[in-house]
C-alpha cells in the first residue's frame, strides 16, 4: 500500500496506539469488566428469581431497561447522520470522525437490543419471535428494523475500514500473529487498484444513501411501540419524527463526547481539531432547536387540550413533588444549555461543547425515562392498590447494575476497538495528493509537501 504524506503522518502518530496494549488500557479494561461482572450477577438473580427482583410491576411494566434500549438505539444515530448525510454532501471535515461515529452506531446497536432481552419475561422463548412472528405487531417491525439497521451499520463501518486494514496488513505492525491474520483477511485483498477503489466508492455511496431512510424507519418504528398504544403521553402523532430527531441529537452529543475523550487520550489534536467541535456544535444547536420545538409542541398541545388522561400525565411532569425537577433538568440541560453554549462565541470551544454534550446526553436519558414511566403510572383506570411498588415505580439495584453494566460494555468496546483499529481513518486523508511513500518504513518522518 502506498501512502501520501498526510496519511503517513497520521499513521505514524497512531501506530503506537494499536501496537501497544499498555497498563492504562488494562486498568480501564478491568474496571469496566468489574461493572460487567456485577451486571452478570444481577442478571443471574433476575433469571433465577424472576423479574420480581426488578422494580417493574403490573402497572409500570416497562422501566429502566426500555429507557436504556431507546437511549442506546438513539445514540446510535451518530453514524447515520454524520457518516450518512455528510458523506452524501461530501463534506471534507467529516473524514477524521467518521470512524468514531460508525463505531458508536455499531456498538450502541448491539447493546440497545440486549436491554430489550433483559426486559422480556421468557429469555428461553425468544426464538418464538422468529418462529411465530405476527407482522402486525410493532415489536416484529422492531426486530426486523433493528436487525436490518445493525447489518447496514456493520457493512458501513467495514467498508470504511477496508482500506485501513490493507494499510495495517502491509505495515508489518508489531502485533501478535493472529491479529496480522485478521487484518489480512479483513483487507480482502485490497491493493489500491483503481477498479477496487471504484468498488468501494460505489458500495459506500449505496450504503450512505440507504442508511438514512433506514435510520428514519428504525427509530420511527421504535417510537410506534409507544405511539400505537392508547395511553396518554404516548398516543401522539408526532412520536415518529420526535424520536428520530431526538436520536440524531443525542447521537451528535455522544459523538462530540467521544471525540473529546479520544483527542485527549491519544493526543489527536492535529486530527480532531477545534473546528470539528464547532461544526458539530452548530449541528447540535440546530438539532437541539428542532428537538426543543418538538418538545414544546408536544407538551403545549397536551396541556392546552387539558383532556383528562393527558392532564394526569402533564400534572406528574410539571409538579415538583413528582417528576417536576427531572422534567426541568431534562429540558434545561437537554435543550437550552447546548444551544446557549454553542450560541455564544466565548463558550464555543471544544471543552465547553463537550461538557454541554455530556449534560445533553444525560438529559436525554432522563427524557426517555420521563416518556416511559409517568405514562405507565397514569393508567386510564385508577390503580387502587395498597402495595406501593404497584403504584410508583422505583428501580432496584438489579436494574441499575445492569444499566451500568451496559454503559461499561459500551466503553469497553470502545477501548478495545481503539486498540484494534486507528481512531482516525488513515486512508481518508488527502485523497487528492498522490501517494508516494511506501508504508514499510516505520517511523519515517516526511515533511508535508
Amino acid at each position, binding site marked *: 500500500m502506498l501512502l501520501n504524506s498526510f496519511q503517513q503522518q497520521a499513521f505514524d502518530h497512531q501506530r503506537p496506539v494499536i501496537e501497544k496494549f499498555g497498563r492504562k488500557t488494562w486498568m480501564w479494561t478491568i474496571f469496566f469488566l468489574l461493572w460487567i461482572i456485577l451486571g452478570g450477577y444481577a442478571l443471574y438473580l433476575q433469571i433465577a428469581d424472576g423479574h420480581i427482583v426488578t422494580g417493574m410491576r403490573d402497572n409500570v411494566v416497562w422501566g429502566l431497561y426500555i429507557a436504556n434500549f431507546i437511549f442506546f438505539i438513539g445514540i446510535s444515530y451518530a453514524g447515520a447522520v454524520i457518516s450518512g448525510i455528510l458523506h452524501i454532501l461530501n463534506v471534507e471535515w467529516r473524514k477524521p470522525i467518521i470512524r468514531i461515529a460508525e463505531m458508536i452506531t455499531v456498538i450502541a446497536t448491539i447493546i440497545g437490543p440486549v436491554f430489550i432481552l433483559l426486559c422480556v419475561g421468557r429469555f428461553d422463548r425468544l426464538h418464538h419471535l422468529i418462529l411465530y412472528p405476527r407482522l402486525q405487531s410493532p415489536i416484529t417491525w422492531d426486530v426486523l428494523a433493528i436487525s*436490518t439497521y445493525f447489518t*447496514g451499520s456493520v457493512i458501513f463501518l467495514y467498508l470504511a475500514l477496508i482500506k485501513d486494514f490493507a494499510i495495517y496488513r502491509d505495515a508489518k505492525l508489531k502485533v501478535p500473529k493472529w491479529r496480522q491474520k485478521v487484518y489480512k483477511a479483513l483487507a480482502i485483498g485490497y491493493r489500491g487498484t483503481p477498479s477496487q477503489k471504484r468498488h468501494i466508492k460505489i458500495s459506500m455511496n449505496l450504503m450512505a444513501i440507504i442508511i438514512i431512510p433506514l435510520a428514519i424507519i428504525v427509530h420511527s418504528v421504535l417510537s410506534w411501540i409507544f405511539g400505537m398504544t392508547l395511553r396518554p403521553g404516548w398516543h401522539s402523532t408526532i412520536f415518529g419524527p420526535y424520536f428520530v430527531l431526538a436520536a440524531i441529537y443525542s447521537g451528535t452529543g455522544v459523538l462530540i463526547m467521544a471525540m473529546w475523550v479520544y483527542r485527549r487520550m491519544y493526543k489527536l489534536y492535529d486530527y480532531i481539531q477545534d473546528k470539528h467541535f464547532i461544526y458539530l456544535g452548530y449541528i447540535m444547536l440546530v438539532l437541539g432547536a428542532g428537538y426543543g420545538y418538538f418538545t414544546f409542541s408536544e407538551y403545549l398541545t397536551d396541556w392546552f387540550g387539558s383532556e383528562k388522561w393527558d392532564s394526569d400525565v402533564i400534572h406528574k411532569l410539571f409538579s415538583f413533588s413528582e417528576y417536576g425537577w427531572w422534567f426541568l433538568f431534562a429540558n434545561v440541560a437537554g435543550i437550552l444549555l447546548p444551544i446557549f453554549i454553542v450560541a455564544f462565541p466565548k463558550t464555543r470551544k471544544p471543552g465547553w461543547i463537550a461538557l454541554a454534550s455530556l449534560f445533553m446526553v444525560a438529559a436525554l436519558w432522563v427524557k426517555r425515562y420521563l416518556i416511559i414511566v409517568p405514562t405507565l403510572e397514569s393508567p386510564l383506570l385508577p390503580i387502587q392498590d395498597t402495595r406501593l411498588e404497584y403504584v410508583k415505580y422505583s428501580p432496584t439495584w438489579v436494574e441499575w447494575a445492569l444499566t451500568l453494566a451496559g454503559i461499561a460494555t459500551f466503553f469497553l468496546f470502545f477501548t478495545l476497538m481503539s486498540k484494534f483499529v486507528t481512531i482516525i481513518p488513515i486512508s481518508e486523508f488527502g485523497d487528492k495528493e498522490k501517494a508516494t511513500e511506501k508504508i514499510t518504513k516505520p517511523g519515517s518522518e516526511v515533511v508535508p509537501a
Partner: protein
Amino acid sequence: MRKIFQILTTSFLALLIISPGKVIAQTDSTKKETATYSPLIEFVSIQKNDNSVDLKTSVKAKINGTLTRLADLKIEFTIGRDSTAKKLGEVITDNKGVAAFNCKPDQLTTDKEGKLNFKASFAGKDSIESAEEIVVVKRGRLEIAPVKEDSLLAVKVKLVDLSTGTEMPVDSTTLGVYVKRLFSALKLGEGTTNASGETTIEIPNDLPGDAKGNLTLLARLDENETYGNLEASVVQQWGTPVSDEVKELPRALWSSHPPIWMLVTFVVLMSTVWGHYLVIIIQLFRLRKEEPKTVS
C-alpha cells in the same frame, strides 16, 4: 452387555431430567382433620311429558364457613314409603356436587293418594355424616303442542292430573313457556289453564335458533305445591338459523393474518434494503477477486 447398561443408565438420567416432578416424590405429613360435616341435600323432582321423572340432588356442606359442594358421594334414590320402598338406583355426585337420576315410567309406583314418594339418601363417608331428603308429589303431566295460525306462532299447553289413574285436567294454574338456551331457559310467556286445563301462549317469530333454526320449546310448571316440577318439551323449526360453521377470522390488525397491504409494504421495504446489501456484498467479492497477483 455394556451397551445395554449404557442405554439404561442414560435413559434413567434423561428421564430424571425430562420429568423432574414425577420422580422426586413429595411427602407431606399433616394433621388429619377430625371435624365432621353434615351435608345439606337439595332434592327436586321434574315430571316430564314422556312420563319419566328426573330426580336431581345437589349436595353441599358448610366447611370452614363456606358452603362447599361435595363431589364423589354415593346417593341412593328410592321410591315408595316404608314397606313399599323400592330402590331406584345409585348415582355418584359429580364435581359440582350434583347427582341426577332419570326414573323410567315403569319404575313409578304411586301410593293410595296417587302421590310419588321419592327419597334421596347418603350413607355417610369419612368425615361427612349421613343425610336424606324426601320429595312427595302428585303424579301429573304437562303436554305441549305447537299451534300455527298464518304467521302467528303459539303453543297449546295442557296440564293433566294422573293421580287418580285417569287423566283429569287441572285448571287455574299458571305455567310458563320457555325456549332452551345454552346455560338456562329464556321465558317467552305465561298463561293460566282454563277449565279444560289448557292455555295457549304466543311465541315470537324472530327468536334465534340453532344452525337449522330449531328451537326447543319448554312448558314448565315450577315448584307447584301438589305436583312439584312439571316439564314438557317440543322441538320446532321456528327460529332463525344461526350458523355454527367454523369461521376463519378475516385478515385484520387483530387477527393472526395481516392485511395484504401490510404484507406487501414489508416485502417491498425489506427486499429494497437487503437488495442493496446484496449488491454491496457482490461488489466486495469482486474487489477481492481483483487482487493483483504480485505482492507490492
